[in-house]
């Protein structure tokens, strides 16, 4: 019993202490000129879908939910966002070479086709980020057309 009590105290103290760890928030007020939506003529519906379903982790501006500012969630999110941006950052689209744009588009298409993105752990909380079959079709068609225009 005493043991459990110690563990519980430990956990509580740990939880409080980690709140003091600084978080680097992925936030930015401006949309850079190099953004995907700036460079390409993206239809409004697709724009909106990408913003809601992708931009939280694939751009320099995350729309943070309240719990994300509490540790350890913040820590977990920070890693995820960093990883997402390394893989694809829509804000830096114009800076990619055509060759890389091509690769990125190919990956975007296959990730959506295979339901790998948006991540399950993300849509679990962001219900509005779930892509309907229609959304998927429209996005894939758009990305495919864009890819073909680059080739």
């Amino acid at each position, binding site marked *: 019993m005493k043991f459990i009590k*110690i563990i519980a*105290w*430990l956990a509580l*103290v*740990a939880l409080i*202490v*980690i709140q003091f*760890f*600084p978080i680097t928030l992925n936030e930015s007020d401006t949309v850079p000129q190099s953004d995907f939506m700036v460079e390409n003529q993206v239809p409004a519906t697709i724009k909106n879908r990408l913003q809601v379903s992708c931009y939280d982790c694939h751009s320099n501006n995350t729309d943070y939910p309240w719990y994300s500012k509490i540790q*350890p969630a913040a*820590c*977990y999110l*920070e*890693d995820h966002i*960093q990883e997402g941006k*390394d893989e694809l950052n829509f804000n830096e689209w114009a800076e990619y*070479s*055509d*060759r*890389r744009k*091509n*690769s990125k588009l*190919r990956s975007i298409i*296959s990730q959506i086709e295979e339901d790998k993105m948006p991540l399950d752990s993300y849509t679990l909380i962001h219900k509005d980020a779930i892509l309907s079959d229609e959304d998927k079709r429209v996005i894939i068609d758009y990305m495919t057309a864009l890819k073909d225009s680059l080739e």
Partner: protein
Amino acid sequence: MKTVKRTIGTMALAAIMVLTVSCKDGNKNEPAAPMSNEMHQESMDDKDNMAMNDNQDAKAVLQDYFKLKDALVETNNDKAKQLGATLASTLGSFDASSYSDNEQQELKDILEDAIEHAEHISESDMAHQREHFKILSKDVTDMVAITGTEMKIYEQFCPMYKNNEGGAWLSMNEEIRNPYFGDKMLKCGKVQREIN
């Protein structure tokens, strides 16, 4: 007094624990540094050998690419992972400085893209490895178009890959060994072009 002592002890312990598992583990977020510089100091020092060394770089890339291709032919996921990582680092140490500005730009684009695919291959399942290999093959083919090659290379093509989208690859042997299907369709494909 005893409880206070214990509380302090607990807190200290907790703090240590937290520090250990903290997410701020140093420079994790820094982009992977290109490995080009260190490994090619020699060729920088020795201007005379430069042209030859560059050819050597392309050759090294091709050799690692072929090894990776063979692992895919064997449908060996783990081996392909390892070889993908090796290829990524070989690509990273490619020194393009002796090429013309245009070629350098082109090579930079190619290498950047190729490294990304090789890295993905180093951490993916078989199906994804093959998907990335397809684009990687295009990158390597475009690289060879610039660097040239001493050895004879065959560009081969299997029209059936990815629901008949098809996929090309490079090989040193004329005989077909299909990296996209492995055992399932080992000999599917034909030589599309000879590069020399």
